[in-house]
């Protein structure tokens, strides 16, 4: 079984702070990490391999620096890694990203594709399902448990708002996974050594036979018009004085607006 895990290198957004004076992002010293949900996808891939055999291939699309994310996945036990990197891929939205990933996955020929449910920087949760559409295969989102897998089918639990569904799908299929699925393993020392020496394949636009009209900014239907920091709520009142004075002022305000 060929298992492809799609990962993304993201800034650790929990470390990002806003400068209260300028209202801009403070990005200095923010480390790059593997998207936390993708760590669970890697672990799931390794567990499937241990259960029924196969090869785990991790792929990512990003700038050359994203190679370090692939090496980390290799150190956890992935067999192979591919970096999709090309200046032409720059500025991809979810449509162009999924299209590019699907082209690469088609070239690899996968039976099972695993993605994290969403990336913590974009939070769209769109790349998994869109990739499945381009590959014309079924997908199941928000997988919290893999109950059974054979060479031709898979049975999983899909998290819903009020519980879960047990869903069966034919293979090949794509799953997006949530954190409840598993606990990602730590890399072994041997894994780290091997990952350091591993040769990571680099594929550009020509390697996946993509057309420049379908990738990067040109292939992206959406555009970022502008970005801004949320403004302070109009009419905000900072209450003053001792704690007791503040509490009395608050109760007065709440009575005034008939909230108490």
């Amino acid at each position, binding site marked *: 079984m060929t298992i492809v895990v799609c990962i993304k290198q993201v*800034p650790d*957004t*929990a470390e990002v702070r*806003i400068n209260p004076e300028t209202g*801009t*992002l403070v990005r200095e010293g923010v480390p790059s990490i593997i998207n936390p949900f993708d760590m669970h996808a890697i672990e799931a891939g390794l567990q499937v391999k241990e259960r029924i055999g196969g090869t785990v291939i991790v792929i990512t699309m*990003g*700038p050359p620096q994203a190679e370090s994310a692939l090496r980390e996945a290799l150190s956890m036990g992935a067999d192979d890694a591919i970096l999709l990197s090309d*200046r032409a891929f*720059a500025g991809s939205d*979810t*449509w162009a990203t999924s*299209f590019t990933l699907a082209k690469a996955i088609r070239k690899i020929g996968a039976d099972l594709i695993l993605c994290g449910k969403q990336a913590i*920087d*974009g*939070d*769209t*949760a*769109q790349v998994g*399902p*869109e990739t499945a*559409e381009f590959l014309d295969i*079924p*997908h*199941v*989102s*928000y997988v919290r448990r893999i109950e059974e897998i054979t060479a031709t089918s898979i*049975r999983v639990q899909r998290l*819903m708002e009020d*519980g*879960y*569904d*047990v*869903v069966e*799908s034919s293979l090949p*299929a794509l799953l997006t996974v949530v954190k409840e699925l598993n606990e990602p393993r730590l890399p072994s020392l041997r894994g780290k050594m091997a990952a350091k020496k591993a040769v990571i394949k680099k594929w550009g636009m020509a390697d996946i036979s993509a057309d420049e*009209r379908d990738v990067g*900014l*040109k292939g*992206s*239907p*959406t*555009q*970022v*018009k*502008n*970005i801004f920091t*949320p403004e*302070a709520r109009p009419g*905000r*009142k900072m*209450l003053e004085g001792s*704690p*007791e004075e*503040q*509490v009395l002022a608050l109760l007065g*305000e*709440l009575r005034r*607006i008939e*909230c108490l």
Partner: protein
Amino acid sequence: MPVVVDSERCKGCEECLSSCPFDALVMREGKAHINEYCQACVACVSVCPEGAIIEIEGGAEEAAHDVRRYKGVWIFAEQREGKVASVAFELLGIGRKLADDLATSLSALLFGASEKEAEELIKWGADRVFHAAHPVFEHFHDEPYVHLLSSLVKEHRPEILLAGATPIGRSFFPRVAARLRTGLTADCTSLAIDAETGNLLQIRPAFGGNIMATILCPRHRPQMATVRPRVMKRGAYDEGRRGEIVAVSADGIQPRTKVLQSVKEVSECMVNLQEAEIIVSGGRGLGDPKGFALLQELAGLLGGAVGSSRAAVDAGWIPYRHQVGQTGKTVCPKIYIACGISGAVQHLVGMQSSDVIIAINKNPDAPIFNVATYGLVGDLYEIVPLLIRKIKEHRGIAQ
């Protein structure tokens, strides 16, 4: 449109570097250089004192759709077990407004459920409902939803298509966008029509929820977006509203997935949190899991529920089901009391549409005060007990 640096004009002053939220500007051989992280957000263009950063022609023109041929606003009305999800009525509220601004009609799509539910959608603001009654919609499968919705869009060409950012909407809507070769913007917190171009302005948190971005889909249709439940307000209900119900067929659509079982795991607490009119929420500033007992006392007194920030959940002080924010629940109570919550934007996007926000924090610079209606600076262990005592006094409850 793509952004480039004119290296002739660039003086290497590095002014632009900190303007980029995506780390896409780097110095190379003394000149600014734009790398693969660029999202063409143009934040840097106005910063350059030399005017060396410019937007150039290009972008997604070649595969563009003829946007003028697309008319009308559509919303996807999700149902489960025959019951329409409340987010559908919220989408009708915003959809009605967008349709009125564009002087066009509003249609709802209902796959499954009964015609009676379709009639309700009209009373909540729809002019037309496409209703597909078919057993394939008894359980949720992505493929039948994708297939039917895509073919209806191809036939009728709406300019805007919205869905709820629920597990169902977030799962199948991306496939529809992929198939239709159009853009999709997730979790919009605000939607409006650009008066000049007629394009849909889609505002959403970006960069892990640390900033907001306005997204456009100028050359492709429909412009697709999802909206989280409880972000938009419902429109007006009109018992006498009349509209058209169009029956559509879903025959011959076979999913490759099969739902074997649906298991309910409803937590009372979770339901309470989203329906509570008052929420008392605690964060890292509590310093201790015992702080939640104090918040529980205040919440109990006010008839409200207890929420928390991600930090408190990560610290193991309170279960995940209490978490409010981008990776927790979106809430919209009448009063939200944030105690010891600094206000990372991840948290703010989950609660900032609350009617009244009261923030209690030691740090006067905490970002929570930016969204607060009333801010109290001080030790929550002093302020909250005082608040409890004063409310009791006010109500004449003996100590």
